[in-house]
């Protein structure tokens, strides 16, 4: 058997619907015979009648309704058709879900699934990675699974968590990533994973970029370098300890993210490493992000806009030479 990242997300939702009657799925086109723009809920409406519901094109109300249902004891999963459209639900996510526990002592166990990240030909409004905006505001857990196993166990955990979770699934990984089977247990959220061990340089990454980093590590192994690759798994909470422990071993840090270059995950990682692990660093910590423009539609532009293995390798080599 072989299962994709996308199938893992569907399986997780099937399991959640099966095991917990408080769970329902709410989103555009998730129901019927269709099962979502990416088929992440394919078949679920039929298997779980009345619990996988199509919504109007109303992202604010979709999340608002999920919040209300969660306050009343349900465990809704909201699917955004693309992460980019969560800009419309942002107020509900940040200001309503994100503040509710702190204000009222009543947690809001919603999970908002964001099909994130770039793919060829998707353009400025179907390619965004919004994890940094959600992580900036208090009150939210922000998950960024990079593997089939994490896609599965973290989604199950997301729904179990009493607090609101923004679950950023990467569209590029949907079909590209396969595993042999699904795990029965996952690594807890908040713990980063050492995706590859090394001692010369630490590359910290998350989501699709983990795989670019791994490719670079493989490539540079051929040049005699041992690169440690860390998969953050969740960007909030962010596992500073694992990052620092790795930097303690390697003395060098490169952080790679797919989103825009101002602020965001890479800035947060570098800032933490610099503030808390300054004496561990043998060279200036570096980062690599996408370019500071909207995400281009044309594949030639897109592949130059996002960080890619070539650029990561270049940056890594420069850092290794320092």
């Amino acid at each position, binding site marked *: 058997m072989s299962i994709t990242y996308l199938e893992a997300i569907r399986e997780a939702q099937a399991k959640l619907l099966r095991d917990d009657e*408080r769970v*329902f799925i709410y989103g555009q086109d998730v129901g019927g015979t269709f099962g979502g723009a990416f088929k992440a809920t394919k078949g679920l409406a039929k298997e779980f009648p009345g619990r996988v519901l199509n*919504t*109007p094109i*109303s*992202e*604010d*109300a*979709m*999340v*608002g*309704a*999920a*919040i*209300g*249902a*969660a*306050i*009343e*004891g*349900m465990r*809704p999963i909201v699917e955004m058709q693309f992460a980019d459209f969560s800009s419309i639900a942002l*107020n*509900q996510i940040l*200001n*309503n879900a*994100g*503040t*509710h*526990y*702190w*204000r*009222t*002592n*009543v*947690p809001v166990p919603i999970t908002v699934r964001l099909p994130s990240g770039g793919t060829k030909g998707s353009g400025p409004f179907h390619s965004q990675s919004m994890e940094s905006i959600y992580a900036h505001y*208090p*009150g*939210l*857990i922000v998950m960024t699974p990079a593997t089939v196993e994490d896609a599965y166990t973290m989604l199950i955990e997301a729904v179990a*968590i*009493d*607090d609101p979770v923004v679950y950023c699934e990467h569209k590029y990984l949907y079909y590209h990533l396969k595993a042999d089977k699904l795990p029965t247990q996952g690594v*807890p*959220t*908040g713990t980063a994973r050492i995706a590859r061990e090394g001692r010369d340089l630490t590359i910290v990454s998350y989501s699709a970029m983990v795989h670019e980093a791994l490719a670079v590590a493989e490539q540079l192994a051929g040049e005699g370098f041992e690169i440690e690759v860390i998969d953050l798994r969740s960007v*909030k*909470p*962010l596992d*500073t*300890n694992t990052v620092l422990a790795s930097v303690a071993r390697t003395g060098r840090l490169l952080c790679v993210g797919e989103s825009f270059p101002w602020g965001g995950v890479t800035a947060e990682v570098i800032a933490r490493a610099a*503030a*808390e692990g300054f004496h561990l660093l043998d060279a200036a910590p570096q980062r690599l992000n996408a370019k500071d423009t909207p995400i281009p539609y044309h594949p030639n532009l897109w592949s130059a806009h996002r960080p890619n293995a070539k650029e990561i390798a270049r940056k890594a080599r420069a850092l290794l030479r320092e």
Partner: protein
Amino acid sequence: MLQTAQRQSKTKKPSPPHERFLEAYRWMLLTRTLEEKLVSLYRGGLITGGVYIGKGQEAVSAACGLFLQKGDIFAPLIRDQAGRSAFGEPLLDVTRTYLGSRQGPMRGRDGNIHRGRPQQNQLAMVSHLGAMISVTVGALMAKRFKGEKDFIGLACIGEGGMQTGAFHEGMNIAAVEQVPLVIVATNNHYAYSTQNDREFACHDLVDRAIGYGFEGYSLDGTDLSACLEIIGGAVKRARAGRPPQLVVASVLRLSGHGEHDDASYVTEEIKREPFARDCLKVAEQTIADLNLVDAKTLTEWRKEAVAKVDEAIATAQKEAPPEGDKEDWCAISVRDLVDSLQ
């Protein structure tokens, strides 16, 4: 304004009193008493942040709270003290929140009209207008999922808030989900300083109902019996499984937007409109005209209201405020997942 209101109450006869008229009147009275007191505390510099009152809207609001039962969901907004009280919010919730006691429902973390008790089904509003409609819809969906019966939800909004995208999406999703929701919209003719002509351009906001598949009703919000009749009717219809209900009440906001606002932009002309009457005075005129209770009882009711309010204030004033160094600075409930931010 008092004179105007009385004059008009003679020209425009209020409906015969609704059976819950006096009960509602007492919530109005309690609210007016409470809010006048809060205003004087504010003037005395004893309240941090804003004070927002519902003067002129107590009849609408009381009617909102009165017909709700345990298990119903209530999403009040900033001018709904009467409804909050009628729905069961303890006065102490109000005074503790305004006076900054750490024992209040928001524990000093949020203030004034943002308070709520979601577990008692009184939702805690966020400021962003319109956002609570869909939240109410979701709560009703949950109740249906859980197999509960006989519940409804009632959400309040101002005519200003009706122009938000969130309101539109919330109203539409209520109709799509066919939840038993009543939306009570109060057109108090101002959104802060902005008059209706810069808020919307339709003839009557109740005409919004049909475009969503709601049933719509208009209401003279200065007339308590009419409020009870129409809002009570909407609640009953929602409970009976009719489509969602929109009630649009017409009043004038008889205060500033908040107590920091002298409302000098409110025109003299609008103050002479029939909807500018003070619903409390109108109700009292009805009581007098129809001799519903004698003057002695009325005086006693007033005293009782004052006593309750004074007690709630005195209690809250004695309580300790929150302290920064004792605060549990944690925005999430699952402590294992707290980020190790410095």
